């Protein structure tokens, strides 16, 4: 029950930091769009570029998250949160933001599908197939792993004593 509650709150917390939340969602939206588009094109080089980009974005996001939340992590440790609880909070935030970016891609694609009836010649290349979208989701999720590991490693290093140092 506690873990589920922390995941729920992590979503809430991520949406309240709009300065970080909106750009991160947009980045993930662009990433999943790029991956789906290049998979559909069948260009391995561009797909690889997208995967590398995704890994970089996710790692940077994991770093930013653990950096900006450092004092909060120390405070949470002081009030009785364990490392695993804090990891869950970070995972929830990272996964929610990345999946929301993916959902935004789906949403845009559905609209393109609707409009493509009128502009078929131009827009049909942007209507993604099921496999392209599926692989894009897989890339978005897998790309989070280094970001999550980095965030967790940095969380472990934060000592609760930091909270008292102001």
């Amino acid at each position, binding site marked *: 029950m506690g873990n589920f509650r922390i995941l729920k709150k992590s979503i*809430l917390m991520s949406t309240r930091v709009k300065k970080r939340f909106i750009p991160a969602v947009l980045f993930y939206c662009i990433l999943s769009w790029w991956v789906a588009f290049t998979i559909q094109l069948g260009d391995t080089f561009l797909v690889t570029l997208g995967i590398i980009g995704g890994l970089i974005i996710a790692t940077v996001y994991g770093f930013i998250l653990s950096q900006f939340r450092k004092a909060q992590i120390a405070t949470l440790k002081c*009030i009785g949160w364990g490392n695993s609880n804090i990891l869950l909070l970070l995972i929830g935030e990272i996964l929610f933001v990345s999946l929301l970016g993916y959902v935004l891609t789906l949403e845009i694609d559905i609209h393109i599908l609707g409009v493509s009836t009128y502009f078929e010649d131009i827009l049909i290349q942007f209507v993604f197939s099921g496999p392209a979208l599926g692989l894009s989701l897989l890339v978005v999720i897998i790309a989070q792993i280094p970001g999550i590991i980095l965030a967790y490693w940095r969380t472990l290093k934060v000592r609760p004593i930091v909270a008292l140092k102001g």
Partner: protein
Amino acid sequence: MTQKVPIIIAENVSKEYRRGREIVKALVKVNLEIYEGERVCFFGPSGSGKTTLLNVLSGLDQPTSGRVILDGSDTRELDERIFPKIRREKIGFIFQDFNLIPDLTVIENVSSPLWPTDMKSKKIEELAISVLREVDMIDRKDHLPRQLSGGEQQRTAIARALITRPKILFADEPTGNLDSKTGLEIMNLLKKINANDKTTIVVVTHDENLLKFANRVFEVVDGKISLSKRGQ
């Protein structure tokens, strides 16, 4: 006559830091006992070692030598798997900078220590409301910390520390960022909590005005402590 039960025992506690090539002796062979239900103040100038003492007594930091017994447990034997539970159940912290989570409302901040537990959310909310009433913050429960004054933020932080009904409250310069009137209100609130719940309160301060709230005052100078006559 009721017997005094020590809840914190420090035995020959020393703490040294390395600053470049120099070794700084932050605490020198500190011996003390703090009893259940006491209000204790550690008073001293900046750099005297009082915050180090609070860190060591609360288990946030380990002494270089000597030992601290916190409610029957030697802090050296508590690892990072057991300590979170002890912090949650036995200890509350009040910080000079309040340390509220800025993205959470007052009621969310107050209930956050109980989120990792198996307690039902409804029960947690009831407890949070109850402590918010106690610190007179119920009307502000849906506000974010940035919408609160310093005194309100500190009252929220106290409510957060109280929700688990800890045996000991550690406060590091709890009025340091407040004006004197608000500081006085906060100290009266802590005194009320101590009287109602018999919570042991350990305050670190450099503010002489706070000393009258303590049963015992220890002066900290160059890492050494001595009992002062300035307590009640």
